[in-house]
């Protein structure tokens, strides 16, 4: 029987083909034409866990471990995967507040909705153990292990430096770093960042919708293991360093000790100091705030950054220049009538025998003697004018490493200041000044600005009879005891080595001269070690003068050269000389016999007593 509506079957057929046409078209566009879904799917499922390499370890020169690593865990979050979760359980585990959770989530969202960022950093292993069990309840969160620094002894904060999170500027300019990475911020950690940091690795995992790891992606073909950072042997003698910090407790200042034959820094004390481990961990920012608002500036790296006038220690340099310029000889004597007088200019001096020759003038630290020397250098008739004389003097001074950045491995250091003629021209006009105008330079006062590191370097140069190696703090990288070539190049001063014994003789006498002979630093004497030293007092317009002492020992074949600064310590002999002497004793004898001297220094409190006044 023929159905009148039979033709309608074609409508059904057409309808079916219309649907098929639309479906195939849509699938073609989804699956073949649009390639973006594959990456979207990968973003869903792939979890890149960065494997942070352990930072290289830092040892001291005797092989003692100073800095190592410990694992902590960063809780990461991918905001796009976060679902509603039990906030109170979450807060209990992590010991944070609900408000905190909201804020941190918001921050993470602002950073990126799709890529993960740290939610809570440095979760302890104990918390991690609890968290790991419950992590499946918190989709979008995962844990990333990361090593942090640990210190065997909480000393040498300024020398070792610390690590902290990279700032945005670094992230933008260096593709190695990602947000939340750590980088050396100061000291060795910064100077040798590229050696210490190692190479990051990555594990690519697949996770399911509940953020549970389901296995390695492509059987681990895309994984890269982390390469551990290279170890570093520092030049520090940690016992000496620790002892130096102990001596400097309750004093402001610095100690720099250098091995003259190599330029290796044995101790680098900046006081007041800080506990390097306090700048790690979750309390870091709080500690940092306290430290940076402290009026005593514990974060200020005094040995490298502070500049002082060198005071009488500079007489050593002026003496050497005088000898080199042949304006004086060893036996040249000058009278001192309680000081130096020329026209309206008067530089006073303390009482001592007179006249004195050069070593005796150093022994007694005679101001008048070096005023005479300095004027002879500048007014030397071989130069057509005082400006040429001055320039010649300045060239000699610079050859000691003053007024320029020593090529040490620290990335920050200051040049210090040795004025150029133009400096005086500006004040007095080109012809308006003479050797008398700049006379204070003769005794290391006035415009000179010199860092404790430069001063220690000068001492090492004298100990070496006229050359130095750039002071440095690292002596070995990895297994090798080879470091940058620049630390092997000899910097030779403009002074002939024959002149140095004369000055060294004076320094010997300053410490070891018989009682009553006018030796200024007898307090630094050690019975069976010939310490050569020179006191200095830096004038301080803001208060009590700074006590300075430079020394090296032993006299023959010197092992240690140092500079000690004690701010507001008065005369060089008062505090700086005993401290230097104790450091020498500690380094060369490894134990302190002069208990009375040690106690005198340990009991000295220049910070609190000053405040009480």
């Amino acid at each position, binding site marked *: *029987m023929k*159905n*009148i*509506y*039979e033709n*309608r*079957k074609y*409508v*059904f*057929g057409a*309808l*079916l*083909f219309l*649907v*098929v046409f*639309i*479906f*195939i078209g*849509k*699938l*073609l566009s*989804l*699956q*073949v034409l*649009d*390639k*973006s*879904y*594959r990456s*979207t*799917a*990968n973003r*869903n*499922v792939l979890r890149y866990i960065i494997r942070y390499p352990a930072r290289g370890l830092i040892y001291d020169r005797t092989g003692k471990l100073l800095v190592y690593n410990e694992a902590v865990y960063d809780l990461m979050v991918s905001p*796009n995967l976060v679902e509603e979760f039990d906030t109170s359980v979450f807060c209990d585990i992590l010991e944070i507040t609900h408000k905190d959770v909201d804020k941190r989530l918001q921050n993470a969202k602002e950073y990126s909705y799709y890529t993960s960022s740290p939610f809570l950093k440095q979760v302890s292993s104990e918390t991690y153990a609890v968290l790991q069990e419950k992590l499946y309840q918190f989709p979008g969160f995962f844990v990333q292990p990361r090593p942090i620094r640990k210190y065997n002894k909480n000393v040498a904060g300024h020398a070792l430096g610390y690590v902290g999170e990279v700032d945005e500027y670094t992230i933008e300019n260096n593709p190695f770093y990602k947000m939340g990475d750590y980088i050396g911020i100061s000291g060795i950690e910064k100077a040798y960042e590229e050696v210490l940091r190692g190479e990051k690795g990555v594990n690519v995992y*697949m*996770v*399911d*919708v*509940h953020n549970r790891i*389901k296995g390695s992606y492509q059987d681990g073909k895309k994984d890269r293991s982390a390469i551990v950072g290279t170890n570093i042997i520092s030049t520090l003698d940690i016992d000496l360093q620790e002892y130096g910090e102990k001596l400097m407790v309750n004093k402001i200042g610095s100690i720099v000790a250098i091995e003259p034959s190599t330029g290796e820094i044995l101790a680098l004390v900046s006081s007041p100091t800080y506990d390097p481990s306090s700048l790690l961990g979750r309390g870091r920012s709080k500690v940092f705030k306290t430290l940076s608002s402290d009026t005593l500036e514990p974060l200020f790296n005094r040995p490298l950054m502070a500049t002082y006038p060198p005071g009488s220690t500079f007489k050593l340099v002026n003496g050497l220049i005088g000898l080199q310029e042949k304006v004086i000889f060893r036996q040249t004597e000058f009278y001192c009538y309680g000081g130096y007088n020329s026209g309206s200019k008067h530089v006073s001096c303390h009482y001592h025998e007179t006249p004195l020759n050069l070593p005796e003038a150093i022994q007694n630290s005679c101001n008048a003697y070096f005023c005479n020397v300095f004027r002879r250098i500048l007014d030397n008739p071989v130069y057509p004018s005082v400006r040429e004389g001055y320039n010649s003097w300045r060239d000699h001074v610079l050859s000691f490493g003053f007024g320029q950045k020593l090529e040490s491995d620290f990335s920050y250091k200051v040049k210090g200041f040795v004025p150029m003629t133009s400096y005086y021209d500006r004040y007095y006009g080109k012809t308006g000044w003479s050797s008398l105008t700049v006379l204070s330079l003769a005794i290391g006062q006035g415009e000179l600005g010199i860092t404790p590191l430069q001063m220690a370097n000068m001492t090492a140069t004298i100990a070496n009879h006229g050359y130095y190696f750039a002071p440095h703090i690292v002596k070995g990288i990895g297994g090798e005891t080879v470091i940058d070539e620049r630390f092997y190049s000899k910097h030779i001063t403009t002074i002939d080595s024959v002149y140095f014994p004369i000055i060294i003789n004076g320094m010997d006498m300053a410490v070891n001269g018989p009682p009553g002979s006018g030796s200024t630093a007898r307090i630094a004497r050690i019975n069976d070690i010939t310490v050569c030293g020179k006191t200095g007092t830096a004038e301080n317009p803001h208060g009590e003068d700074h006590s300075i002492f430079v020394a090296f020992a032993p006299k023959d074949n010197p092992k240690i050269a140092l500079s000690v600064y004690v701010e507001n310590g008065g005369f060089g002999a008062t505090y700086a000389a005993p401290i230097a002497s104790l450091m020498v004793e500690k380094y060369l004898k490894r134990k302190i016999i002069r208990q009375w001297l040690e106690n005198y220094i340990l009991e000295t409190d220049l910070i609190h007593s000053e405040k009480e006044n």
Partner: protein
Amino acid sequence: MKRRINKWSEIDWITIVLYLLIVVLGWVSIYSAVYNEEHDKIFDLSQRYGKQMILIFGALVIALLVVVTDSRFYSSFAYVIYAIVILLLIVVLLIGKEIHGAKSWFEFGPLRLQPAEFAKVGTAMALARYVSSKSFNIKNSKNVFNVIVIILIPAIFIYVQPDTGSALVYFAFILVLYREGLSGGILLIGILMMILFVLTLIIDKMVIIIALMVVGYLVFLIIDRNIKRFLIAALIYIGLSGTFFGLKEFAGLGLSVYFILILSLIISGFIYSFFIYFYRIRKAVLIYMLMLGSIIFTFTVNYAFDNILKPYQQKRINILLGMDSDPYGSGYNVNQSIIAIGSGGFSGKGFLKGTQTKFEFVPEQSTDFIFCTVGEEWGFLGTSLIIILFTILLLRILVLAERQRSGFCRIFGYSVFAILLFHFVVNIGMTIGLLPVIGIPLPFMSYGGSSLWTFTILLFVFLRLDISRLEYLI
């Protein structure tokens, strides 16, 4: 009257082969969707693929039973079977197991049955029986009313469970009625309403109303081809609405703009009726009624959308219409589903290599979203194959239905066609983001006994009926 024939040589093996192919591909996809290394035995009954294996064997047994049963059983017991499924739908509301907030399941130990699925069989039979009866006339409104009742009773009970998706399937029967003589106009109006429905939700109501009027008057002009009458009609309306606006502005009458527009249209209608009677232009009536009807429909949709639909339903529709982009909220399912299918590329990631489905980013990946597994692991080749298989199957059913000599068999065949088509279109349309998420399974492929068995019964009853055309010469 009955001839003895060999059922197994006469049965349509093309359909059976297609059926088996799709079922096996479905099982493979389920295996892949729920696969994990700990349970890789295909008969592991703790896993869905193990259970589905049993369900497939069950389906084959049912198919066998269906074929050996006398074909007259189905027409004779059509109403009884219908009554039984309706009864089951009522009982499930009383003692059914509630899962995901819907009382849709009977639980017998490990077996869960969904009467809403089996109700399709009963409804198809009852519809076929009623429409094929000699006294039935599609032009008779009482008969049409009864047909609507037959279709709506199960749909309403299912809607109450609530299982909106399964209830919507019953609209598919309208297609069957069209084949049996339902006016194409009704179908067209239905399509028009759907378009209008979508437009209403996207575009501002005012724009639609004005656009409808402009279109109405223009259609009148085109059909009537008389500019004078067109101008008169337009001026009447403009004059009336202008008057009302004047009253609103100067007499301070608190009339809303919508109210003025519609009131003017209705009053114009009275005036038009005089002209229509005078000039005998009957087409104008139709145009006027369509125009007014559409405008009222627009208001109804707006009202219904805001007041009747549940918020999650509103959200799903909004997302589909691109009015709401919330890829991690309500749109999550579709979004992940599209990512899964899209990431498959041309040839797919390979068997068991799909990450979207394997790691549960796609929800319901073994049931409603099984097509994603195919799309991700077998790519465009896989999805095209599935679509082609379904197309051939549907075409084959169409051909078989058309060769029936009895109305009952043809109508039942068309019912099978319509239901399969609806599931096919809505399920795949949903997974590729063309249609809103309506949770209905992909026939023969989705995990679940009720759906598999129901479609098996539908298909094999039809194949059994197909053989019967050689047995009985009705």
